C-alpha cells in the first residue's frame, strides 16, 4: 500500500476535540490534494470525523469550512494550476469555492465508530485516558480487516503500553501534535520496539507533506515536550512557594512569572503558560507521568489546591484565555489568584514594589518578540546573560537559577534517553514552545 492508498480511507477519533479538529483539518486538506492529482481521478477518498458529541461535530464542520477557505485563499496560485482543466472555474473566487467543496466532500462527520472499521489509518485524539484509548483501539482493530495503522496523539501514555494492551503489535506509533495542530509546526514521533518501519516512514512523509518539523522522542511518559515543561513548571511553582516564606504567595507568583517571561526572554511567563495549557491538564499529565518516574516526585499540592477551588485556566472555545493562576483582560494578565481569599489581587496594587525588589533588566535586554527574530541569536543571548550574571539583583539571581534548572532538565532528558540528543530537546522547546533559545546552552554556567 503506497502513500496515496494509505490515505484513501482514514478516520480521526475525537475529531471534535481541540486536537482532533486540527488533525482532521490538516488530513482533509492533504487527502484532498492527493485526490485531485490526475492519477487519482475517479477514486473516492473518505475521512471519517468520529466523535461522541453531535454538537461538537456540527461545530467542527463550521470550523472546517472557515479554515479550508483560508487555506485555499493562501494557495490560490497553486490551485489555479490544479484546476487548469476546469473551464467552468475562472476567477479565484470560483476556484477557491470549488476547493472548499472538494475538501469538505471527503469528510464524513459521524458518531458511529463502526465507520472506522474500513479505514487504513486511524488517528486517535480522544480524551487523555489510557483505558479509554486502549478499549476503542482494540475494538476497532478487532473489527477492521485491513491491519490498519494507529497514530495516537497521547501526551503522556507510553505507546508500548497502548500497543500491548490493545494488541496492535507494530501498528501503532505516537504522532504527537502540539496545540493547535493547524498552526504549531512541531510533531513528536514516538515508535515502539515493534513499530513497522513502513509505518514510521509513512509518518515522516505525512509530516513532511503537512510541513511539520518532526522530532523523534523515545517512548517515555511525557516524551520530550511535556518532560521538559512539567519539570520546568514545577520549578517555577516551587520557586514561588519558597519566596512565599517572606512575601505573600500572590506577589511571589507575580515575580516568578515576570522572571520567567522578561528576564528569561520567553513568550510568556511560566504561570501564564500553565494557565494557557490548563491547570487541570498540567495536573493530569503530571499524574500520568509520575508513576513512571523512579527518582523524582512530579506533583504539586498547589495545583491540587487550585483544582479544588475550581480555578482551572484553559481556553474558551473562542480561543480566549480563561482565568487561572492569573486573571486576563484582552489576553494579558492583570491580577493574580489569592488562594486564601479565593479572589484575584490586581497587579497594580503591588507590582511597583515587586518590580523594584526584582531590579531592572540588563541593559542589553531585548523583548522576546524582537530577540526571537535575530538569526544566530547566541550572539545576543551570550552577552545578555553574561551581563545578568554580574548583577546582584533578586530578578537576576532568580533568572540565572531558573535558566540553570531548565538546562539541567534538558540534559536529564538526554541522559535518561527520552531525547536522542541535546539538539532534539532544543528543537522541541524552540518549535513547540516558541522559546527564543534552547534550554540546553552554555549561558548559565
Amino acid at each position, binding site marked *: 500500500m503506497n502513500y496515496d492508498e494509505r490515505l484513501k480511507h482514514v478516520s480521526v477519533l475525537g475529531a471534535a476535540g481541540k486536537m482532533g479538529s486540527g488533525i482532521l483539518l490538516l488530513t482533509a486538506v492533504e487527502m484532498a490534494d492527493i485526490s485531485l492529482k490526475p492519477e487519482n481521478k475517479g477514486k473516492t477518498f473518505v475521512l471519517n470525523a468520529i466523535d461522541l458529541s453531535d454538537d461538537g461535530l456540527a461545530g467542527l464542520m463550521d470550523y472546517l469550512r472557515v479554515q479550508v477557505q483560508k487555506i485555499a485563499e493562501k494557495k490560490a496560485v497553486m490551485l489555479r494550476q490544479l484546476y487548469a482543466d476546469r473551464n467552468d472555474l475562472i*476567477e479565484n473566487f470560483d476556484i477557491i469555492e470549488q476547493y472548499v467543496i472538494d475538501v469538505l466532500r471527503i469528510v464524513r462527520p459521524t458518531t458511529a465508530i463502526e465507520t472506522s472499521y474500513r479505514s487504513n489509518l486511524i488517528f486517535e485524539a480522544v480524551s487523555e485516558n489510557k483505558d479509554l484509548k486502549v478499549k476503542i483501539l482494540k475494538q476497532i482493530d478487532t473489527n477492521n480487516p485491513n491491519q490498519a495503522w494507529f497514530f495516537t496523539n497521547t501526551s503522556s501514555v507510553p505507546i508500548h503500553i497502548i500497543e500491548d494492551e490493545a494488541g496492535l503489535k507494530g501498528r501503532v506509533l505516537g504522532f504527537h501534535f502540539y496545540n493547535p495542530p493547524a498552526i504549531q509546526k512541531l510533531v513528536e514521533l514516538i515508535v515502539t520496539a515493534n513499530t513497522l518501519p513502513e509505518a514510521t516512514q509513512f509518518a515522516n512523509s505525512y509530516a513532511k507533506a503537512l510541513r511539520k518539523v518532526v522530532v523523534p522522542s523515545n517512548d517515555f511518559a511525557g516524551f520530550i515536550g511535556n518532560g521538559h515543561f512539567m519539570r520546568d513548571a514545577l520549578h517555577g511553582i516551587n520557586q514561588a512557594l519558597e519566596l512565599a516564606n517572606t512575601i505573600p504567595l500572590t506577589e511571589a507568583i507575580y515575580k516568578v512569572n515576570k522572571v520567567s517571561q522578561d528576564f528569561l526572554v520567553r513568550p510568556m511567563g511560566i504561570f501564564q503558560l500553565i494557565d494557557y495549557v490548563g491547570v487541570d491538564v498540567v495536573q493530569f499529565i503530571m499524574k500520568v507521568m509520575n508513576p513512571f518516574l523512579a527518582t523524582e516526585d512530579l506533583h504539586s499540592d498547589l495545583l491540587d489546591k487550585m483544582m479544588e477551588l475550581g480555578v482551572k485556566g484553559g481556553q474558551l472555545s473562542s480561543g480566549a484565555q480563561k482565568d487561572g493562576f492569573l486573571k486576563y483582560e484582552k489576553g494579558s494578565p492583570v491580577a493574580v489568584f489569592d488562594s486564601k481569599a479565593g479572589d484575584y489581587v490586581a497587579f497594580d496594587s503591588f507590582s511597583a514594589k515587586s518590580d523594584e525588589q526584582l531590579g531592572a533588566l540588563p541593559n542589553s535586554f531585548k523583548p522576546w518578540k524582537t530577540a526571537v527574530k535575530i538569526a544566530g541569536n547566541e550572539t545576543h543571548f551570550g552577552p545578555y546573560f553574561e551581563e545578568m550574571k554580574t548583577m546582584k539583583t533578586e530578578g537576576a539571581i532568580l533568572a540565572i537559577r531558573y535558566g540553570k534548572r531548565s538546562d539541567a532538565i534538558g540534559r536529564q532528558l538526554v541522559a535518561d534517553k527520552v531525547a536522542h540528543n541535546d539538539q532534539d530537546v532544543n528543537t522541541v522547546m524552540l518549535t513547540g514552545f516558541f522559546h527564543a533559545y534552547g534550554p540546553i546552552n552554555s549561558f548559565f554556567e
Partner: protein
Amino acid sequence: MKRKIYMTAGYNTISMGTGRKEFNPRKERPGLEHYISEAGKGVLNQIGGADNVDESFIGNFMAARFNKQGHIGGFIGMIDPGLEFKPAMRVEGACGSGGLALVSGIRSVLSETADVVLAMGVEVQNTVKAIYGADILAGAGWYQKRKNSHAYFFPGQNSDRAGAYYEKYGYDYTRKGMGKWFCNDMENARLDGTAQEFHNSTPDLEGMYHGMKPNGKTFVDHLNILDCSKVSDGASGIAIASEEGLKRIGVDKKDAVEVIGWAQLTRNITNDPPNMLELTTVKKAAAKALENAGISIDQVGTIEIHDCFSIVGVLGVEALGLAAPGKGAEFITEGNTSRTGKIPMNTTGGLIGWGHPTGATGVHQAVTIWQQLTGKAGNAQIDITPEKPYGMTINMGGDDVTIAAIVYKRGI
C-alpha cells in the same frame, strides 16, 4: 483650445489601508458614502458652495463588485442638496476612471455647457481580501483571457513586463531602478498626511526592498509586494472651471492651474500589448498632450505618473521620452526622478506610497500637481523653477489601455 480651462480647490481624503496606523481590517470601516461626501465637501468649501457647480463627474471602477453598489452618479446629490437635480454621472475606465472624470469635465467646460464642474473619483477596496480583489481588478483586462491568467491578475501582467525587461537589460540593473522608485515613493509619502504610507518609518527602505526576493510560488515570478501599489479606500475631488467660472467661485488665477494640453487615448483591450517593453498608449498620449500644449518634456517640472507597479515607473520614464529604451532604470537609479532630481515624479508618494483607490487616482494626481504648482503642497512642496514651470499627469486604466494625459501650468 477655444476656452481657457482651470483646475482648483483640490481635495484628497486619506488613502486608507495597510500602512495607516488607524487601519484595522477586522473593524467596520467607512464606505463609499463617507469618502464621496468628504472629498465633495472638501472641494465645495473652497469654491463658495454647491450652488456654484454646474455639473459633476465621478470616476469609479468597480464599486459594483467591491461594494455591491452601482449607479455612483446618484451619490453626487448626497454631498450637498445644491448638487441635486443637476447633471451628474459616473465615468469608468478601470484605474483610469479618475482621468476620465477630469477629461469629461474639461470637455463640458470646453463645450460651454458648464463653467464650473466638480470632478471626483472614488474607490473603496478593502471590503474583500486581496485574493478576491484580484478577481475584481482583473475586470480591467479582457475577461476572455482570465482563465489562463495569474491568480494575482495585474501583478501577473506586470510581472511579465518586468521579466521581459530583466531578460533584455539585466536583473540587477533593473531591480536597482525599481528599488529606487519604491524608495522615492515611500520618502515622498512620508511628507503627505493623507498618504497611506505617511506613517512609514522603515529605517532602511533600500535594504528592505532588496532583501525581499520575488517568489512565484506565493505571489508572482518577477515582483514582490513592494513593487505593487496599495489596496486603498479613498476619494479625491477638484473643481474644473472656465475663466468666468473662476470669477464665479472667487478663486484667483494664481491659486489655480491652467490646463494647456491634454489627450485621451484608448487601446483595443482584446489585443495583447504590442510590445512588452513599451507602454505604447502612454507614449502616444503623452506625446499628443505635449504637442497640444506646445511644449517639450524638458520644460516639465514635475510629473504624476501611474506607477501601479514600480516597473511601470521604469517603462513610464521611457514612454515619456525622458530616457531611451533600456535606460529608464538607470535614469531612476541616478536620482533624476527623486524629489530633488531633474524631474521629480510622484511627489506625494504615487500609487505605491500615497495609495491607489483605483477610481480616484487620476483625480488625486491632478490635485497633487495643483498643490505643487500653486505652492500648496505643504511639507511635500518641491521647487518649481521658471525654466520648468509645467506639470503633467498620466493616468492609466488596464495594461496600457485607457490613458488620460494632461499638461498644466500655474494660472496667471
